């Protein structure tokens, strides 16, 4: 198997029906895929649906997996990312009521808050970002993909990725510090 792909050997064993390898792959990738889907979708149940679908595809493809240009982790990211963006697209097709307002995140500077509250506030601010900014930040910061991989996944160039990242970070800071009005 591909010696440069850290998941290559595990995937080969999964394809041979090795249950221990499947468990190891799940232990390695399930938290990562769940975090990706949850941050992109901001919905736990939908994220779990996506993750199950991703792994169904992994189980189907494992025996046929051959080392190629993409690493297995990148392929999994692409599957999960596409499933999430499909769901987000369907959500956008459902018109929001005219009176709908995005919830205001609690400005972090206003009060001493718990780590949990802080996490919730950042989660809401992330959810309020423009979708492409959120995708760029999630892939680069939380999933820790190299810039070229993140850009390729989003179908853009590295320059465009950097622009989305910079705007997303500024917007996030403004919302969390209550300076975006």
């Amino acid at each position, binding site marked *: 198997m591909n010696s440069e792909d850290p998941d290559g050997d595990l995937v080969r064993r999964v394809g041979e029906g090795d*249950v221990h390898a499947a468990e190891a792959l*799940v232990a390695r990738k399930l*938290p990562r895929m769940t975090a990706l889907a949850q941050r992109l979708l901001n919905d736990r149940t939908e994220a779990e649906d996506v993750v199950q679908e991703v792994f169904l595809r992994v*189980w189907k493809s494992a025996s046929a997996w051959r080392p190629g240009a993409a690493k297995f982790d990148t392929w999994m990211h692409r599957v999960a990312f596409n499933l999430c963006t499909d769901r987000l697209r369907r959500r956008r097709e459902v018109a929001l009521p005219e009176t709908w307002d995005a919830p205001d995140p609690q400005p972090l500077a206003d009060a001493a808050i718990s780590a949990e509250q802080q996490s919730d506030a950042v989660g809401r601010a992330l959810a309020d970002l423009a979708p492409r900014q959120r995708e760029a930040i999630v892939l680069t*910061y939380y999933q820790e993909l190299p810039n070229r991989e993140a850009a390729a996944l989003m179908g853009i160039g590295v320059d465009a990725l950097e622009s989305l990242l910079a705007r997303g*970070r500024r917007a*996030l800071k403004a919302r969390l510090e209550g300076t975006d009005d």
Partner: protein
Amino acid sequence: MTDMDLNRFEDLVAAYGATPNRWPEDERDAAEAFARSDPRARALLADADSIDALLFAHKVAEPSRTLRTMVIEGAPTKRRLTGRARLWWTTLGLALAGASGMLAGSAATAALEPVSANVQLYSQDVPALDYSTEENAQ
């Protein structure tokens, strides 16, 4: 190592934050050298670091045990693969049996055809009985 100036460093930090590990690999050394040598870099890094801290305050709950179990239940196992292979061979066997049945049928038809032809020929050789004549003879 690529060239690095204040503008590029500013863009780099605005996009990737204050942690060098996240900076593009081909610019990392130059950016780190710039950060050490230019005092203006310090303010940029401090600002970026505060945004990094906000970003990493966000935590996602670990996947539930139920999800983990459901995912693992779908994994291929040797038994399932063997079952799948058996099913494949059974399907192939049935297909071959069907095909050989058809072949046998064709062969039988082919074998019978000359007989039919013979019969036809034979029947042509035998003059049609003229019952009326026989009856008349009796």
